């Protein structure tokens, strides 16, 4: 076997290396994906962002990516590989890559890193996130108008602050329209598992919900909702193809704008570490077209969206109570970001016990 490898090595040395020198001038921007770039959800949204980046700055940069990278020691190796292969700016696009990114960033001080949805930064490591909850608030309002029973189903992934925040935003939005609105939650304990997600959707519909939303990545819940004839919201990518008669709207992650902005700063030598948390107004998330709903509901959703974009409306504004009835925010008071980022409690109206 060694001999064979040796023979291969020598032939490859002749052919292979000629290609290596040509692309050296362009800066390399690299991405690590936790899922497949065609997952139809979270990872695909990042990959669309990467393609937009190539389209916009393709004459100055080239991009590379590694997909299906498991979180843990494998991620550390994958990130190091990119850092060593000449990437100047590396986006690690899953929360679970946080510690691996921190480790490699300290080893490669000349490479810039950006970690999505995390909270650890360094001089060469920035974090970025999106205020998904703004979209959830709008969804909640729509759900309250559409639902006849006043109960929505929520397929959640893991009980982490990001997801709890989404649930609370949805309920808060819904109760701003219908103060008695309730939601039921099923924890799928996965980001990506069509089978489990579909089961969760069926269980919720059997419990009598008549509108469905999800914080998982596949289109399976949308398909179940379509079969059972109820309405649903898409997640991460526009899922209208999975439910042309079903999808009301979707939170669409549009990372492209951010990737272009940060890469431009990197090229200009102006890149600095930061914790970016943009929202609807910055275009990092957009709402898919409002469909399958009466005109007045659509008008309400658009008005709310405009108010959030202008800063007039902050979704988490009092009076708001926690699930147990104790006061969280006084009338007119808005939540600070730190509370949101560590959110580990439900607000009133959630028919579920938060897994502790």
């Amino acid at each position, binding site marked *: 076997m060694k001999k064979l*490898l040796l023979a291969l090595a020598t032939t490859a040395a002749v*052919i292979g290396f000629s290609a290596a020198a040509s692309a050296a001038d362009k800066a390399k921007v690299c991405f690590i994906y936790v899922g497949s770039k065609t997952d139809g959800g979270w990872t695909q949204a990042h990959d669309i962002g990467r393609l937009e980046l190539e389209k916009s700055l393709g004459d100055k940069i080239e991009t*590379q990516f590694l997909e299906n990278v498991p979180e*843990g020691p494998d991620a550390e190796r994958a990130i190091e*590989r990119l850092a060593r292969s000449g990437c100047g700016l590396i986006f690690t696009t899953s*929360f*679970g890559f946080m510690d691996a990114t921190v480790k490699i960033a300290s080893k490669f001080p000349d490479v810039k890193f950006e970690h999505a949805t995390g909270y650890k930064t360094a001089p060469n490591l920035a974090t970025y996130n999106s205020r998904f909850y703004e979209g959830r608030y709008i969804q909640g309002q729509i759900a309250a108008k559409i639902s006849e029973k006043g109960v929505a189903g929520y397929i959640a992934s893991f009980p982490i602050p990001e997801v709890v925040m989404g649930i609370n935003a949805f309920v808060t939005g819904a109760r701003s329209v219908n103060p008695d609105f309730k939601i039921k939650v099923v924890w799928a304990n996965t980001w990506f598992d069509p089978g489990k997600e579909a089961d969760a959707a069926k269980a919720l519909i059997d419990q009598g919900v008549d509108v469905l939303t999800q914080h998982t990545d596949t289109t399976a819940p949308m398909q179940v909702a379509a079969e059972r004839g109820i309405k649903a919201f898409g997640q991460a990518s526009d899922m209208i193809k999975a439910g042309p008669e079903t999808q009301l709207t979707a939170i669409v992650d549009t990372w492209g704008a951010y990737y272009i902005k940060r890469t431009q700063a990197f090229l200009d030598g102006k890149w600095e570490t930061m914790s970016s948390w943009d929202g609807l107004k910055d275009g990092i998330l957009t709402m898919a077209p409002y469909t399958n709903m009466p005109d007045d509901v659509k008008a309400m959703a658009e008005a709310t969206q405009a108010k959030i974009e202008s800063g007039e409306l902050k979704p988490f504004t009092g009076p708001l109570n926690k699930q147990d009835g104790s006061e969280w925010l006084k009338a007119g008071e808005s939540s600070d970001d730190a509370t949101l980022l560590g959110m580990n409690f439900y607000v009133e109206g959630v028919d579920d016990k938060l897994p502790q």
Partner: protein
Amino acid sequence: MRIELEKRPDVSRLFSILSPFIALLLTLVCGAVMFMMLGKNPVAALYGFFVEPLMEVWSLHELAVKAAPLILIAVGLSVCYRSNNWNIGAEGQFIMGAIAGSILPVMFHEWNSPFVLPLMMLFGMLGGALFAGIPAFLKAHLNTNEILTSLMLVYVAQLFLDWLVRGPWRNPGGLNFPETRTFEASAILPEMIASGRTHWGFGFAILAAILIWFMMRYTLKGFEITVLGQSERAGRFAGFSSRKMIWFSMLLSGALAGLAGISEVSGAMQQLRPVISPGYGFTAIIVAFLGRLNPLGIVVAGLVLALTYLGGEAVQVSLEISDKVTRVFQGLLLFFVLSCDTLIHYRIRLVASKLAGSATAAATTDGAR
């Protein structure tokens, strides 16, 4: 005209040496064709897959890190399989070892002492061994099928870990994310060589391989394992107890899987998460058979399999070859290696006429039984 397999009267020495090379050659040819069909330069792709990861120091370290758990688990499994005990649950024993070993750094994290690490390793081995003891007990005393029980217990271990890191062991300062606190320095398995990430888990793997190889080859215990594995009745006549052998082989392989688990967690991850293994316990079964259940062969097999993972990433970066192609390529390699081993026991014959062919075919299949 037709091709037939005919059983050899004896194992072919020539082919037992040649078969891995034939397999590699077939894989390379098939792989090259596949890469060509994808419009990639096949030489560059194969170079990236098999050679590039071996050319840099950091990458060699990563190879060792990836291979360590595979080798350690597979070495233990080889003893099981040689003695005809089919432990399929190494994945669960790996996890339970990691959990038991993490008791000290998670629950008693204030205790920093040089004794922490050795105790963690010991607990890890105990955890894995005790968990493997369940199917061992069930088989030895209730005559249940250890393939089923050990496999089912994998899910128990996975869910137990999941519950721990979401519940009682969750990091109090971790914003509710499902992971334990990170280990203190005294609970982290140190690196073996200063130049990279290779931790002592790899040392354990090599040491275990040498010790088990020595045991199988030069000790009475090794003889006992082989005899009982090949014929239980013959073993009984020699005064060996197959019941004791169930206990011995299961506990040994459980302990090694547990050691692999705690080494991986302590050396490479430094905390527990809901998922700590990308299927090492199952991949190790392949490694054990690729190494033909010989501990030294397993070291080579573990390194080769780890190489395909690293090579897959390398070509993903350098040639934009999809991650799925990598898996297909791994599958090709395993398929050819295992199927080429057929040549050790069988020879290929071309059969000329239809009639005569079917007659001999019947005869050979009978013979094969």
